[in-house]
């Protein structure tokens, strides 16, 4: 009954609902990476952090029965991996891009290893708030079941924007990212600032991972993340290191990623895999449009190796 009454509207509705559901991990990883990159270092290992976060959140939630403890564990795991990245990068002549690749492989491998016994059991999942109570239509209700983590992420974006602009910590991070010499001249340890920025970035990326295993798709398996972490890192680049733009870009990405399943739900199944690749194609397309060989990107932290 409800199905027939809204017909093809299912697709935009599912894309809208999907944008909110799928965008959350993008949002957390990109905000985290935004902090790290603003401090002048790039962490490509967040893909591994995301998977480790998903695994540890699921494990702790299963063992303790509390999904929020799982989220905390995911954040701490992420911070630990961030500390590892920053620690290795602070050695002389070590390339942060390469360390990121190594931690991407290490994080995924470790998560698969430790997560083997977690594929079978079911862990307690994160609750959702039902914003669609006013509607009788099942699809509307499904689209408006919104997770608390998404709301936290949405609130975090303007908070970070404000923090970068006005707080002492925001200024320190930006100084380390724009000119390490200036930060040093002010008597601050650049390595320490970057260590903290990378740990906070890892913390947020880990929480993004917990969303994957504890809410949507909501289980732990080895195919859980396929490139969301690295897509989010690319997303920071064309969001021009601006937390608010990270938010809008994440929503756009979530929508693109929800397109395949949405079309499948109305019976369009051909090209399913191609639609699933939509976020990657979109990332590449936006990078092609917004990058330029002639000038460095506006808003890019001057110390960032990847844009120099």
């Amino acid at each position: 009954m409800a199905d027939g009454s809204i017909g093809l509207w299912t697709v935009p509705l599912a894309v809208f609902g999907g944008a909110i559901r799928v965008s959350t991990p993008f949002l957390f990883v990109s905000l985290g990476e935004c902090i790290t990159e603003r401090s002048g270092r790039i962490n490509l290992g967040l893909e591994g952090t995301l998977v480790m976060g998903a695994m540890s959140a699921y494990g702790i939630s299963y063992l303790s029965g509390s999904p929020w403890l799982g989220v905390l564990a995911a954040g701490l795991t992420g911070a630990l991996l961030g500390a590892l990245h920053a620690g290795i990068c602070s050695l002389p002549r070590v390339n942060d891009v390469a360390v990121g690749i190594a931690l991407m492989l290490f994080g995924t491998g470790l998560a698969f290893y430790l997560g083997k016994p977690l594929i079978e059991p079911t862990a307690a999942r994160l609750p959702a708030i039902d914003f669609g109570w006013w509607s009788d239509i099942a699809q509307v209700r499904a689209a408006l079941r919104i997770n608390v983590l998404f709301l936290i992420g949405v609130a975090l974006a303007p908070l970070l924007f404000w923090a970068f602009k006005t707080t002492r910590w925001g200024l320190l991070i930006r100084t380390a990212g724009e000119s390490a010499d200036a930060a040093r001249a002010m008597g601050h340890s650049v390595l320490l600032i970057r260590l903290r920025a990378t740990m906070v970035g890892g913390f947020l990326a880990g929480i993004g991972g917990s969303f994957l295993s504890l809410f949507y798709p909501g289980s732990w398996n080895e195919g859980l993340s396929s490139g969301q972490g690295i897509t989010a890192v690319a997303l920071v680049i064309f969001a021009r290191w601006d937390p608010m733009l990270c938010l809008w870009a994440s929503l756009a990405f979530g929508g693109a990623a929800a397109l395949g399943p949405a079309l499948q739900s109305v019976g369009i199944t051909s090209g399913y895999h191609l639609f699933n690749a939509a976020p990657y194609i979109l990332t590449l397309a936006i990078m092609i449009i917004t990058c330029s060989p002639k000038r460095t990107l506006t808003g890019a932290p001057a110390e960032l190796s990847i844009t120099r």
Partner: protein
Amino acid sequence: MTTDTADSVEAAAIAPAADAGFLQRHGQVIEYILIPGAALAGALVVFGGFVALFGKNPLDLYFYMYYGAFGTWFSWQNTLTRAAPLILTALCTALPAQLGMVIIGGEGALLIGALAATSAALALPSAPPLVVQCAMVLAGITGGGLWIMLAGGLRQFRGVNETISSLLLVYIALAILNHLVEGPMRDPLSLNKPSTREIGAANMIGTIPGMDVHWGLVFGLVAAVASYVLIYHTTFGFAARVAGGNIRAARIVGLSVGRLILTVCFLAGGAAGLAGMIEVAAVQGRTNANLAAGYGFTGILVAFLARQNPLAVIPVAILLGGISASGGLLQRRLGLPDASVLVLQGIIFVFVLASDALYGRIGFLKGKV
């Protein structure tokens, strides 16, 4: 040498080809073997500690790793079979590295190369095997080559970071492969595991006489040696290394940097595409999702461990091939999950990168014991 050794070492570090003393030159070679070796040993110790946490005996671990990799003729053959694609995917990272580019999309080029090679074979149903095999090699190299050339072109003409774009291209390649294998190219008879039609037993490239290792190993060895000659003994390679050292200087002396980038990326992707062709023509016999076995990602590690030197890629690929060959034995005898090989690879990678800090800092090689 009786001059101040510390000074001449510093001079050697700035310009390695300059007039360095005998000891210093030796010191550098020793460093290149000693430091990665120490990193490898350190990684093995940490991994031993890791499995000890799960109640396994690290000594058993080392024994089974050695036994499964190099202990018997059977395991040697298994190791060499796995080393063949690793040599080629490692070149996909090592060649662009000469230009200062970090390409990590070898897995994508491998998949596209496999698809192209399979398509070539299926398009020539009645041609003689040798023609089909040559067409597959060409198609594999071209497919993979164009795929990585895309990343290189985006970097050259649009300033898109090649590390991120090449990785995104892996996921896009995987989607294309899944789409074709489950849709237009699907063999209706492949029910459980969607696959393309088989290329036919006559078109398989077979094994090297006297051993159970396929000809892919020879392809890999030839490609590695050819890459070494190209990089270190031709003007093209010299130009590439100049551009990698200082891109502005290269432009000033009139090198066409754009053409260098595109050519090197094509060759790099071609190597990985050839790996895909070999996996089809020597192992799988068809294209399906089995091809995404991670050879492209392990190849990145091989390239970094070999310090991007095409010749050093060969022994390192055999070593890493051995580690992955021993994975099955570790699973059966010690009950370790199959991901333990991935963990070990990750630990090795981290150690190797951290060991970069040691170059030029080892006291006894500087002559101040």
